[in-house]
């Protein structure tokens, strides 16, 4: 029997420990392989007109993935190596040369890596079909995802991971050289040096976070601070203050809170509370860095995912706002209408409407904050009757416009840059004045065809007949119209008809946002899994260190139930504190994002956060269960 066969046996019997390590590697490989398969996939490239954009988006995401996967594998590798320090030390003490031990660890790690690579690529191949289907579905195509193996993707994955494994294997090789033998032996006995919480540091931490939040909440376009410091600098300052503040928060503030709890002896000296709080105090401060990483990762994942999901969620709405009618075009001759009618069937409504295109003198609308400061603006004018007719078809409120007054329909209205319409007066070339009695951010005409629309009273409309050009629009309302139908209609029409189509706009924005959503959720999934695993590994390392303590408690007659309760609450705090901080960060970031885009993201973001918290929660239960298993097993064997 050789040393290597013994080492091999050791692997086989310690499989549960190795399993975790292999599983995290396989997971990383599956994710990465699937991702590059999609990147190189013809199906996707052929389908998207915006393929160039999608391609570079994917390449960018792939770089982030590599970076992340590397950190994740390095982390699990170091966790795994830590557990083996004692074994390695024993080999050294029994007279195996350092170089031999180093090579053993190096090859073992490389073999595990190769094994994971094969498993990962096979599983990744199976998964990529599923992911491809999801992506295609999200982008709104009706194509079946083909089941193809991409050799380029496999090569890419193999190269990337071989490099990663070589680096981590080298880490293993160096383990024996990095430490003195005596340290290896007493690795687990060394205590952590807990930093002392300081009041100043705690206050500083909170102040930094508040400052970052305050900066982020400023309006990007009107804030003096943003203007003065410049956009990239401000973003950098926000990130730095928030991350640093988070670190100080974990470093000191949590310490304070726990120390305060410790003063409440009546509560503390009841059952295992004393153990729970002391353990937390001991751990949380020493782990400020890991907790910060977890909080920041959570914040990034939730923010990015929430933003992208919010955009996706709002795509339908915004396509509807821009195109209140399914189709609309400017009709110039009856022949054109006939051809269109030949293609279209099953309309909910089909109307021909009259409108005027009038150029107004609009000096009064200008103000320092408006983007557009020209003296003349061209609006499409319709009468109240037409508006109300369409409004009832589109289930909108009716309007009542007084003579010589008007209502403007500007869906792009933004109080920061748009003119203040109400009360302002504009005049036609022939000297007819119109005063805005109000404005609406919804239109009844498709913006792509009609632009900004002004509604006037029926009499006023008649009076203005000669002030501009008369137009004929045709508006169609069709339920569940397809992109194909849209295409067919468009083929019948000349460019000048300014054809606008709800389904087409929806499809275009879906293509962009759908792939964004996919990449966003993909990366989100990776970040989430990695975040969960980092805490999992971390807590289990602590479990290994603490098992003798729990054995002692067991011997003192503490029931298993009480121990489980203490463990569950300790792990709960370790999980919840960074989650809460991370969610808080992302709420602020998303608030800033949504006011920037003038979108209501509350519902999609909430959904996203709930999804994140649920998966994160699963990790919590898994961790507590594993922790308990380690303790119970140890109590059983140690008696």
């Amino acid at each position: 029997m050789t040393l290597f066969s013994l080492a091999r046996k050791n692997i086989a019997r310690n499989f549960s420990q190795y399993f975790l390590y292999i599983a995290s590697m396989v997971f990383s490989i599956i994710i990465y392989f699937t991702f590059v398969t999609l990147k190189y996939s013809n199906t996707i490239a052929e389908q998207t007109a915006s393929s160039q954009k999608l391609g570079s988006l994917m390449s960018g995401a792939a770089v982030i993935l590599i970076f992340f996967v590397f950190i994740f594998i390095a982390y699990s590798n170091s966790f795994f190596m830590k557990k083996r320090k004692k074994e390695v030390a024993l080999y050294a003490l029994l007279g195996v040369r350092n170089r031999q031990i180093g090579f053993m660890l190096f090859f073992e790690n490389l073999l595990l890596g190769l094994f994971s690579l094969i498993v990962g690529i096979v599983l990744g191949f199976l998964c990529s079909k599923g992911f491809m289907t999801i992506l295609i579905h999200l982008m709104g195509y009706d194509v079946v995802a083909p089941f193809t193996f991409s050799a380029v993707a496999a090569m890419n994955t193999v190269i990337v991971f071989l490099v990663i494994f070589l680096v981590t294997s080298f880490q293993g090789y160096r383990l024996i050289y990095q430490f003195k033998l005596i340290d290896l032996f007493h690795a687990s006995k060394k205590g952590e040096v807990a930093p002392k919480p300081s009041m100043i540091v705690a206050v500083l931490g909170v102040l930094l976070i508040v400052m970052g939040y305050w900066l982020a909440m400023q309006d990007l376009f009107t804030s003096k601070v943003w203007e003065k410091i410049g956009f990239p600098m401000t973003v950098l300052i926000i990130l730095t203050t928030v991350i640093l503040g988070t670190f100080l928060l974990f470093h000191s503030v949590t310490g304070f809170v726990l120390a305060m709890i410790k003063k409440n002896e009546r509560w503390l000296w009841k059952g295992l509370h004393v153990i729970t709080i002391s353990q937390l105090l001991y751990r949380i401060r020493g782990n400020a860095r890991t907790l910060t990483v977890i909080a920041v990762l959570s914040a990034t994942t939730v923010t990015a995912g929430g933003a992208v999901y919010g955009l996706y969620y709002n795509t339908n709405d915004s396509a509807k706002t821009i195109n209140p009618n399914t189709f609309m075009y400017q009709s110039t001759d009856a022949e054109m209408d006939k051809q269109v009618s030949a293609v279209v069937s099953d309309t909910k409504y089909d109307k021909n409407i009259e409108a005027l295109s009038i150029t107004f003198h609009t000096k009064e609308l200008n103000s320092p904050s408006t983007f557009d400061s020209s003296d003349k603006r061209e609006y499409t004018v319709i009468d109240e009757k037409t508006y109300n007719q369409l409004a009832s078809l589109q289930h909108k409120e009716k309007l009542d416009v007084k003579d010589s007054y008007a209502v403007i329909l500007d869906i792009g209205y933004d109080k920061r840059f748009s003119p203040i319409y109400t009360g302002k007066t504009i005049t036609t070339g022939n000297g007819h004045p119109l005063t805005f009695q109000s404005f609406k951010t919804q239109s009844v005409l498709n913006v792509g065809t009609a632009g900004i629309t002004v509604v006037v009273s029926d009499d006023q409309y008649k009076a203005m007949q000669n002030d501009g050009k008369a137009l004929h629009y045709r508006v169609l309302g069709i339920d569940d119209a397809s992109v194909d139908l849209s295409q067919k209609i468009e083929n019948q029409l000349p460019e000048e008809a300014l054809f606008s189509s709800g389904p087409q706009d929806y499809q275009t924005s879906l293509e962009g946002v759908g792939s964004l959503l996919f990449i966003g959720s993909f990366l989100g999934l990776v970040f989430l899994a990695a975040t969960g695993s980092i805490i999992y590994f971390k807590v289990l390392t602590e479990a290994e260190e603490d098992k003798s303590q729990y054995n002692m408690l067991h011997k003192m007659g503490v029931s298993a139930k009480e121990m489980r309760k203490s463990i569950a609450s300790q792990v709960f705090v370790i999980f919840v504190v960074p989650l809460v901080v991370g969610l808080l960060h992302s709420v602020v970031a998303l608030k800033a994002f949504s006011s920037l885009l003038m979108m209501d993201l509350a519902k999609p973001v909430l959904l996203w956060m709930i999804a994140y918290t649920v998966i994160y929660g699963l990790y919590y239960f898994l961790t507590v269960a594993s922790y308990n298993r380690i303790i119970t097993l140890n109590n059983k064997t140690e008696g």
Partner: protein
Amino acid sequence: MEPLLKVENIKKVYGKLSAAYTALENVSFDIHEGEFVGIMGPSGAGKSTLLNLLATIDSPTEGKIYMKNKSIHDMKEAALSDFRREHLGFIFQDYNLLDSLTVKENILLPLAIAKIPAKKINHLVTQISKVFGIEDLLAKYPYQISGGQKQRTAAARALVTEPALILADEPTGALDSKSATDLLESLSSLNENNNSTIMMVTHDAFAASFCRRIIFIKDGSFSTEIYRRDQTRKAFFQEILDVHAAIGGEVDDVI
């Protein structure tokens, strides 16, 4: 006769400058082949530090340790590995068995490392396991056996290569008195019958009474030494207690 082990004026300082703490100073002694030496002293006297130095897992700040006339801390890493493999055997207080290997595999680990042919390994393992009375446990895993059995397994592992020097760090520290007596008797008979050289650090006077010679250290330096000669173990035990009390060790600490 040349001594097997020669410790010359060693000093060990932990930490730096103001925080420096001298664990050992001015310690010198010789150990000859076939001796069974106990190292005793109160807690914090530097016993474990001394053993770590002898085990080559730590190196002295000053002074030299010679084994078979070679300065062990001047050896290169590879030579040191060979040296440990060929000449040293270790027994730890907390056993240090690999949980994933059976008792048999744990015992044969050093032989496997030394690349001994399988047939010879079988023979050696059977032989040593008989000495320690664990031949029925060979197929079991460490978590299936008692503390005493684990320590006997660890001792068998230390002795199976027939090393020139066996270093034992509080081997009975975690054992009940029956298991401790069994282990000590096995060690003692190996010392008498096979002429094995054993050096044992202990704070337990009962365990120490199995030795042939006791070196006392106190506050990091050599204090005194006593030989058992032809006294009975009981009489030697009494003498150990007396000396221990005389150099200021607390009696509680001994028993």
